């Protein structure tokens, strides 16, 4: 309450303010109000003093009333002062850390010491040449000098302005450039700029729509030795699984790999997956990290098979049956391509149990296979021989299991399932069945004798479980085991990857022979 309102300094006697301004400021009335406010405050203080001395209880109601009146009056005066004092004084609303340092400077009417010295130095420098002259002459000289400087400044400013105009300085920020240009033109430029910047920065406008993502047939030289393009207009990376290329799915990522190999399916039918799959950096796979070898590919397929198997297990049994039927059909489709048994490396690789497991995987052969099939055919036409070998290997792998399965798969119910699966316009099957395949299916079926000749095998759980041939059917178990060992021997004799093509051919007759044998065995 002690703050006396800051009044504008009362006009000094010597220097009178402009009378008009003085009237506008209304200083007299302001003074009157300020004085009366001071008196009111003094009264309140006196009252308090009296309370203190006489030790009486103050009448708070009255005091509060007086206080609010004083407060209001003070507020009014401050407002008034603000209005009139704008031109003369700085009236900070409050002092804070930000303005604390500068406030004294702003409020001070005296120059800072360093400013004062600077000022004096300048003055002396300026008057050096003319000090000896009489005062009027000094003034004249200084005026002339000021004029010269002003003219030079003006010149400089004009030059700057012209240059700015010529080179477009100063128009950079803001749309001030636009009026100089035709509106339509400016809009066009803006649009082009956006296109260009978008293209460079995030590729907007340069992406091809998915349906036009056809890779050029004539690859530029710097890509020709890096990429191989198949007929489908997709990139075929040599030494990569076809599944990945054609379907664009990466089923064999590291995490899945770990998860798969750790999980051990608990279903009774599939309980033979005891050995974990090899990691890509395991001794078996050494040297195949960068370019997957055929063996590597087979391993990859196994992962898929395992995944498929776990999916299969989750299905109800009738669906399992259906799936099996489809799978069998797919197996036959693969075999139509006339590819031999090229699973030698894998078989070499896995002994005993491992082999058993391998065959099991075949038994549950799987949907992913059907999907790339169409592309495979195109693929074969164009792919390098390396790719071809891999391709044929991956399919050739199917054959032995297929042969056996078709034998086992002889119940009447099963053949009915076959037929329905073939006939039904399943979205999965349609794209994969080329006309050639569907035609050749029939004789093939006959060849395998898929008819009700093996009644004890019609039960679905048997079908799922008897890939090993040793769960049921005593005679057959022995025979099949013999076959297996024969087959293994044959395959071992076939040697390495190098002469894969010939292997396929030479294996083909073996395959047929086995088929024939099995057909004979079945009626027993």
């Amino acid at each position, binding site marked *: 309450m002690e703050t006396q309102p800051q009044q504008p300094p009362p006009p000094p006697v010597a220097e009178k303010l402009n009378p008009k301004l003085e009237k506008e400021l209304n200083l007299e009335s302001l003074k009157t109000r300020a004085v009366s406010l001071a008196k009111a405050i003094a009264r309140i203080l006196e009252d308090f003093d009296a309370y203190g001395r006489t030790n009486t209880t103050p009448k708070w109601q009255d005091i509060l009333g007086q206080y609010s009146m004083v407060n209001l009056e003070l507020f009014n005066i401050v407002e008034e002062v603000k209005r009139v004092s704008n031109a003369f004084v700085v009236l900070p609303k409050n002092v804070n850390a930000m303005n604390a340092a500068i406030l004294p400077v702003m409020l001070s009417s005296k120059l800072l010491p360093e400013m004062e010295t600077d000022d004096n130095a300048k003055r002396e420098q300026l008057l050096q040449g003319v000090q000896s002259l009489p005062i009027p002459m000094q003034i004249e000289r200084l005026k002339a000098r000021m004029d010269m400087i002003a003219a030079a400044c003006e010149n400089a400013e004009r030059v700057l302005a012209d240059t700015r105009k010529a080179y477009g300085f100063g128009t*950079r920020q803001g749309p001030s450039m636009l009026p100089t240009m035709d509106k339509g033109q400016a809009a066009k430029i803006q649009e082009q700029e956006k296109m260009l910047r978008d293209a460079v920065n995030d590729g907007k406008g340069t992406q091809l729509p998915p349906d036009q993502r056809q890779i050029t047939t004539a690859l*530029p030289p710097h890509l020709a030795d*890096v990429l191989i393009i198949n007929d489908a207009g997709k990139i075929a990376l040599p030494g990569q699984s076809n599944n990945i290329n054609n379907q664009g799915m990466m089923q064999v990522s590291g995490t899945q790999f770990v998860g798969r190999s750790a999980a051990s399916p608990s279903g009774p039918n599939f309980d033979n997956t005891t050995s974990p799959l090899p990691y890509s950096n395991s001794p078996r796979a050494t040297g195949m990290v960068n370019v997957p070898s055929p063996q590597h590919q087979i391993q990859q397929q196994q992962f898929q098979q395992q995944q498929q198997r776990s999916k299969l297990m989750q299905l109800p049994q009738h669906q399992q049956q259906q799936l099996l039927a489809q799978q069998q059909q797919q197996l036959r489709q693969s075999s139509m391509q006339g590819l031999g048994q090229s699973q030698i490396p894998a078989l070499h690789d896995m002994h005993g149990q491992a082999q058993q497991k391998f065959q099991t995987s075949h038994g549950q052969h799987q949907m992913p296979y059907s999907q790339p099939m169409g592309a495979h055919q195109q693929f074969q036409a164009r792919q390098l021989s390396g790719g071809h070998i891999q391709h044929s290997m991956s399919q050739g792998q199917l054959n032995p299991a297929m042969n056996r399965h078709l034998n086992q798969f002889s119940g009447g119910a099963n053949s009915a399932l076959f037929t329905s699966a073939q006939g039904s316009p399943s979205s999965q099957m349609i794209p994969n069945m080329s006309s050639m395949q569907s035609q050749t299916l029939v004789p093939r079926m006959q060849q395998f004798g898929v008819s009700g000749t093996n009644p004890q095998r019609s039960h679905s759980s048997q079908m799922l479980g008897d890939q090993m041939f040793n769960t049921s059917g005593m005679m057959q178990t022995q025979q099949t085991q013999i076959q297996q060992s024969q087959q293994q021997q044959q395959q071992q004799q076939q040697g390495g990857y190098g002469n894969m093509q010939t292997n396929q051919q030479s294996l083909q007759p073996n395959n047929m022979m086995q088929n024939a044998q099995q057909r004979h065995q079945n009626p027993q």
Partner: protein
Amino acid sequence: MSMECVVQGIIETQHVEALEILLQGLCGVQRERLRVHELCLRSGPNLGVVSSEVRLLCDLDQPEPTWTVKHVGGAMRGAGADQISVLVRNMIESKVSKNALRMFYALGYKLDHELLKVGFAFHFQRTAHISVSVSSVNKMPKVHAIDEAVPVTPGMQIVDVTAPATSENYSEVAAAVSSFCEFLAPLVHLSKPSISTGVVPTAAAAAASLMSDGGGTTL
């Protein structure tokens, strides 16, 4: 973390020659031809939750094309970043062999888009190592068909000024870049990539004056 300072602008193709003369005079080095096939690859869903993006650049102007892989990270944000007139962002790049493309495809990266940049560039030292490239940006009608590439904007080319920086020195580098850009102001306005500048309305006059007095001496 390595960073770069970037500004970008556009110039009408008809003034590109004048810009080249101006740059020649400012940089004091010979220009380099620029012919770069830029492939932007994006990772598939199998490689982490957030998709990542890499750019493979193939310099086609070399007798044997050379490849560079480049990852452009996020731009610096905040009040400090707003106050400087250039964009500061994380950037990592490395020379790679030609097998890089195949490797990224095998990893599951997919081609997002590709560009063919044709033009010229100047690389010089001025407080920072500054690169100025002026290029026409071409898109392909078919994947990888650089022979059939067509300009995105036929009458307009892009000017990129970049300089490598670190988290310690980026403010000096940014200052060097922006002070260099002042010299280009008669022909091209440069700004952060996201900010549109338009063309310089008086570029024609500046270009004419550049072509008349200094033009013959530099080429």
